[in-house]
């Protein structure tokens, strides 16, 4: 996560590869191929047999032994405008196309262990066939790029055009300029238009025509993102004699102006992204720490197994997901909703068992409780390892949580994270209501303030302890559910969060929900703003050190009120 930058989706998703394959809008490739295969089969019903035959024959020429025939076929396919040719041409380009003895074209998957017939879409048994590789060279590949680009740029599907435009931005496309200009004229969607304009501007920078270059810079100034900085910086480069390579000062000024604009825009974007990811991290920390704050505040009990309650919640979500997959595949999408009560009650139940069985015998001995609960956490971790294995398990996002909303050009807020923030707000409000508005809450608050007095007033403290501990653990379970949607689920999940959640509680002040909220959010946001500056690890260390310093100054927590200290 070091040096992580939000404008670049690839890098954002790279640390969660799981999302890649699920996210149609962004990664597309595999689904695209699938969609096109469907398209292809449907195509046979729609186009006339003559055309179909012509198309088919040209397509078959891609597997011709003569390289010049291949070239001709590629060009022809590019001009025919039938998108069904795209997967075949891509396969050819990526060396995944094979020709069988009876001249049918076989497209292999990326691992090259499965294949299907390019025309019929039927899977074929690779082992039984004698396959030949078509011979292509760089010239063919160039032609292929152009033809594929052409087909994509003029595709009827805006998704395909969009991804094609994005692809164009990443590489040089000077041989496609005319094509893009044509496509731009036809294009109606703003987003794609802007991308086309940028692609053209990028090429236009190298033009000999000054006004064209200035125009290009202007386009980049308004539309370009960080990726254009290097291109613009090239314009400002100097040679060894400290002279500008670019002689024209007007162009240089325009370029440096553009860099400043882009940087400013990027800065705003980054801050917005930092804020969002900080909030997201903070809300997760909050879920992790909230239960801890409740149990710690109420009973003065440090529950080292609290992290494992998170882990249990995540695994319960996993189990519910699998049950749905097995028994209710039609309602699979709803598994997450069903997992909410399950993870809450499951973790709460385990929490209550621990409280009744072990922790209550240690009241008044906080350090011993700390050690005993650590022992519990070891047992829970090992149990999960033995049952589910030591590897991470897969928890899939339901479709309504995959993808994200693009708030600004280049910044995507994933739905899963947005949902978690909303979820956390809901949980905090419910807990607050529970503590403030119900009789159980009243009892909890009474016991927190003065256990003996509450006991004298006829409050059954042991029941209150039990329920509170259950509540705290249940909330942690919900935290686990939330975590399962954005991160890996493994036996050590809890260990990752336990130190952080303690820091939140310590920072926020013990037994103080408002403090916990403030502590978690500020910690999360602070962390994310620090990360780009200091790097993830160093950022974390700085945060820890700062917390240690804060506690020096305010042992009662940063966000809690100053009270008469009761000790002895």
């Amino acid at each position, binding site marked *: 996560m070091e040096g992580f930058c939000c404008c670049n989706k690839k890098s954002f998703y790279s640390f969660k590869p799981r999302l890649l394959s699920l996210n149609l809008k962004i990664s597309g490739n595999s689904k695209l191929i699938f969609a096109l295969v469907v398209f292809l089969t449907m195509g046979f019903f729609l186009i006339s047999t003559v055309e179909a035959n012509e198309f088919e024959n040209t397509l078959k020429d891609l597997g011709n032994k003569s390289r010049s025939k291949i070239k001709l076929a590629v060009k022809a396919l590019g001009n025919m405008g039938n998108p069904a040719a795209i997967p075949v041409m891509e396969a050819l380009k990526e060396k995944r196309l094979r020709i069988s003895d009876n001249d049918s074209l076989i497209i292999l998957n990326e691992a090259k262990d499965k294949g299907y017939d390019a025309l019929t879409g039927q899977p074929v048994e690779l082992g039984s066939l004698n396959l030949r590789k078509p011979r292509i060279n760089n010239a063919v590949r160039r032609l292929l790029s152009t033809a594929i680009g052409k087909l994509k740029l003029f595709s009827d599907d805006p998704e395909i055009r969009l991804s094609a435009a994005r692809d164009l931005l990443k590489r040089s496309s000077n041989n496609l300029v005319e094509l893009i200009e044509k496509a731009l004229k036809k294009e109606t969607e703003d987003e794609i238009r802007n991308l086309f304009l940028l692609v053209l501007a990028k090429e236009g920078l190298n033009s000999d025509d000054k006004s064209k270059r200035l125009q290009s810079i202007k386009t980049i100034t308004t539309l370009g993102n960080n990726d254009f900085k290097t291109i613009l910086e090239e314009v400002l480069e100097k040679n060894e004699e400290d002279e500008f390579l670019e002689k024209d000062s007007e162009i240089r000024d325009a370029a440096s102006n553009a860099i400043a604009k882009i940087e400013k825009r990027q800065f705003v974007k980054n801050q917005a992204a930092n804020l969002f990811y900080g909030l997201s991290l903070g809300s997760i920390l909050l879920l992790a720490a909230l239960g801890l704050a409740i149990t710690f505040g109420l009973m003065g009990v440090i529950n080292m197994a609290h992290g494992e309650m998170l882990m249990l919640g995540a695994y319960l979500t996993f189990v519910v997901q699998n049950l749905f997959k097995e028994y209710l595949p039609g309602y699979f999408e709803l598994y997450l909703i069903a997992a909410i009560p399950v993870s809450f009650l499951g973790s709460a139940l385990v929490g209550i068992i621990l409280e009744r069985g072990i922790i209550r015998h240690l009241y008044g001995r906080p*350090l011993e409780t700390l*050690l005993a609960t650590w*022992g519990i*956490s070891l047992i829970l971790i090992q149990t999960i390892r033995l049952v589910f294995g030591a590897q991470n398990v897969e928890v899939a996002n339901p479709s309504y949580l995959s993808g994200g909303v693009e708030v600004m050009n280049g910044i995507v807020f994933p739905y899963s994270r947005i949902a978690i923030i909303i979820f956390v707000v809901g949980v905090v409000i419910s807990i607050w209501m529970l503590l403030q508005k119900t009789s159980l809450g009243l009892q909890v608050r009474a016991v927190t303030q003065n256990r003996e007095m509450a006991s004298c007033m006829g409050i059954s403290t042991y029941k209150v302890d039990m329920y509170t501990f259950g509540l705290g653990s249940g909330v942690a379970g919900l935290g686990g559910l939330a975590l399962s949607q954005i991160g890996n689920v493994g036996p050590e999940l809890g260990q990752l969060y336990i*130190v952080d959640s303690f820091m939140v509680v310590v920072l926020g002040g013990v037994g103080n929900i408002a403090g916990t909220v403030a502590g978690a959010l500020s910690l999360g946001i602070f962390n994310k703003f620090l990360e780009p500056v200091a790097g993830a690890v160093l950022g974390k260390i700085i945060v*820890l050190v700062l917390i240690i*310093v804060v506690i020096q100054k305010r*042992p009662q927590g940063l966000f809690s009120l100053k009270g008469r200290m009761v*000790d002895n």
Partner: protein
Amino acid sequence: MIKQIIKLHSLKGWLFTFSLLGIAIILLPLLNIFAPENSFLHIPDYMFSLFGKYLCYALVALAIDLIWGYTGVLSLGHGVFFSLGGYAMGMYLMRSIGKEGVYKSELPDFMIFLDWKELPWYWWGFDSFIFTFFVILIMPGLFAFIFGYFAFKSRIKGVYFAIITQAMTYALMLLFFRNNTGFGGNNGLTDFKKILGYSLQEPSTKMSLYILTAIVLFIFYVVARFVVQSKFGRVLTAIRDSENRVMFSGYNTLNYKLAIWTISAFICGIAGALYVPQVGIVNPSEMQPSNSIEMAIWVAVGGRGTLSGALVGAGLVNGAKSWFTVAAPDYWLYFLGILFIVVTLFFPKGFVGIFSRLRIKRKGNQNG
């Protein structure tokens, strides 16, 4: 002062202590050298590294007992002091490799791997054993002193202190994991060849290290005994039981806690330095929070607030660990977890507590 030291044990107690030392540093090596290979009395070479490791752990337990068992300050960060001592020794051992490393360079291999051209300044001096020796003596204690000064001064105690120390070790672990920190990152320091010119592979070197560890442990046992039997020790237990009263009785408890905290870290650092050449590696996982908590459980198992308890506990738990990791690796964590729970729930005085309770019972039976 000598009188005071002699009075630390009864005659019987001293005899017992010395005979244990004798067994450790004379009898066992003799059995290794003179007992025939196939005799059950023979102690194979590799056992000495294992014993040496246990003795280092015992030293750690002693250090933790002083600060936790006697003073009531639970530290979950002693792995840091252990590691600092270990890393200092490791740096010396790295420098001792000289040009015998994989890349045949003066620089340690991992630096070559990172494409570093010269030694960072904080590695300077570690080619000298004397320098390293002083770093081992000073660094862990100094670090503990600074940390402790701020923590104790702001009156952080109890579970708060425990958590802060855990955060400390966590932060340092992260720091040492970074390649750029310059301590070998993830892999730490390893592939040592020589110490003071002697090959670390030689059984005789291993045995010498083991004997040295035993002697150091004995010395610190006596020192610790001296500390806890003095009025200083009584003040420490008084702080554990009622710090306010101690303060209102005119003791600067900050100084007392800081002193024992620093001594404890000092001992721990030495243990780490003795540990590293015997196991041949030091890496950031020594600073994992779980490691430090495990150290605390050694003391709890043996019996808090008794020095013998700490030593026994370290031996018992680590002996069990060695057995489990071979015989039933899946169940080691279960055993450890249950140990944590059972000891805190049922045997707050640990093994030594059970033992002395039995003795009292027997005496009572005889009298009755």
